[in-house]
């Protein structure tokens, strides 16, 4: 089968928000990546010491993978098409059928089998998102928002990538929006999403939001008492990887959120939002500083990591974000 659907690829920071932004644009609704990210309320923080991945506690700078795909269509009142499969061959056949119909399709793949990734980045991470927009012979044309140009993947590899097992297994997920409105009144949606994020960051149960950041700081401070140097190194490395490596737009999504706040300022014209955006940028800068400190500790290897410094940087991040979100709390008054 040879089919290429006319389509504009663009380069974004984060796979999930990028995919949704591209899909919506293709269907005639232009929303930027920060807008998609902010509106879906994906900004978050979670430190879950009881949940381990690769023997290290889960640290997340945003909501679970899949949150944006699930929530954003609901928020915009778009009816999406979403399907998971049991049978791999049927899944591949239906994908071909969508392409033949001229439909571009969002898919979920495992980074391990995504052959166009740099070899060292092919981890067992099951929730990578991209878009299929054509097929030439046995190769699918993939628009992966975290890559500059469209990529290609062989059908055999794509099948493996769509059907890996384990945590958040893709199960051949396909999705695309249907019946997309041409214009959306963003103001009430922006207010609602910011309110949600504020509530989560300030008042969520332990391990989430600002409490999570402070708990992480405490955890880091007490690492030498509990764990050996090798574990500490892996722990710090994992923090940086979650924050910077997996397409976060820098500073663990903080810069994307600051860009979102700036955009909302342009849409709503409230000076409060522009101020909050500036503060959020500061918070992001502190996160970068902290990532650099962690990376230094990892590089030294000898185990003389300056953990009090790292912990105090984390507390500074929490303080800066507290300012941002208490500021945003006043949004409902204006």
């Amino acid at each position, binding site marked *: 089968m040879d089919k290429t659907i006319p389509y504009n690829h663009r*380069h974004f*920071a984060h796979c999930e928000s990028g995919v949704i932004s591209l899909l919506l644009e293709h269907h005639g609704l232009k929303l930027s*990546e*920060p807008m998609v990210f902010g509106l879906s309320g994906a900004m978050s923080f979670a430190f879950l010491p009881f949940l381990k991945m690769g023997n290290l506690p889960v640290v997340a700078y945003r909501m679970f993978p899949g949150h944006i795909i699930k929530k954003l269509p609901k928020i915009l009142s778009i009816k999406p098409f979403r399907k998971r499969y049991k049978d791999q061959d049927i899944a591949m056949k239906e994908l071909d059928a969508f392409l033949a119909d001229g439909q571009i399709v969002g898919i979920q793949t495992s980074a391990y089998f995504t052959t166009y990734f740099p070899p060292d980045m092919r981890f067992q991470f099951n929730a990578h998102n991209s878009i299929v927009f054509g097929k030439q012979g046995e190769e699918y044309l993939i628009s992966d928002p975290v890559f500059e*140009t469209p990529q290609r993947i062989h059908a055999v590899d794509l099948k493996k990538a769509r059907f890996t097992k384990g945590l958040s297994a893709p199960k051949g997920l396909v999705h695309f929006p249907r019946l997309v409105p041409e214009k959306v009144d963003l103001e009430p949606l922006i207010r609602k999403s910011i309110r949600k994020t504020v509530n989560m960051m300030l008042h969520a149960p332990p391990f989430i939001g600002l409490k999570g950041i402070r708990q992480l700081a405490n955890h880091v401070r007490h690492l030498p008492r509990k764990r050996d140097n090798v574990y500490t190194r892996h722990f710090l490395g994992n923090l940086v*990887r979650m924050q910077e*490596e997996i397409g976060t737009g*820098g500073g663990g999504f903080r810069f994307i959120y600051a860009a979102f706040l700036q955009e909302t300022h342009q849409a709503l014209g409230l000076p409060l939002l522009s101020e909050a955006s500036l503060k959020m940028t500061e918070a*992001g800068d502190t996160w970068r500083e902290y990532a650099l400190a*962690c990376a230094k500790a990892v590089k030294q290897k000898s185990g003389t990591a300056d953990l009090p410094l790292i912990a105090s940087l984390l507390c500074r991040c929490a303080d800066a974000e507290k300012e941002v979100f208490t500021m945003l709390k006043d949004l409902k008054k204006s």
Partner: protein
Amino acid sequence: MKKNSVPQDNNPTYQGYGTKVIYAVDDGGEYTAVKSSGWEAEEIVLKDVVNDFKEKARDAKERALSGQASPIEYFMHLKLMDPPALASGIGIAKWRVKRHLSARGFKRLNRKMLHRYADFFDISVDILSNFKDHINNG
């Protein structure tokens, strides 16, 4: 972060694979998407975890060759997995995987279970059951 302070450290990992997008503020205070060729901090932590897996795999291979460990352990590290990931991938309980990771537990594996591991690792059963011969012959 300012646009001109976005790191451009030419990370070896991305060489030939393009750039990544970082959001930063330009001179007029507007947010824009900036292409970055990588940050040294990322490269350090990435290399650390990749090398860690390689080291574990090498170590497990040595031990498996001398009969002290299970070849499954070697393939698990080679495929960048940990026991829980392996368990959920194969669809059996964690404690069973842990048992199969010991040399003794591996010896007791039946043909069917070996097949499931081999399929999952995308190798032939023979490599698992005659690990020594295969590794020694390259």
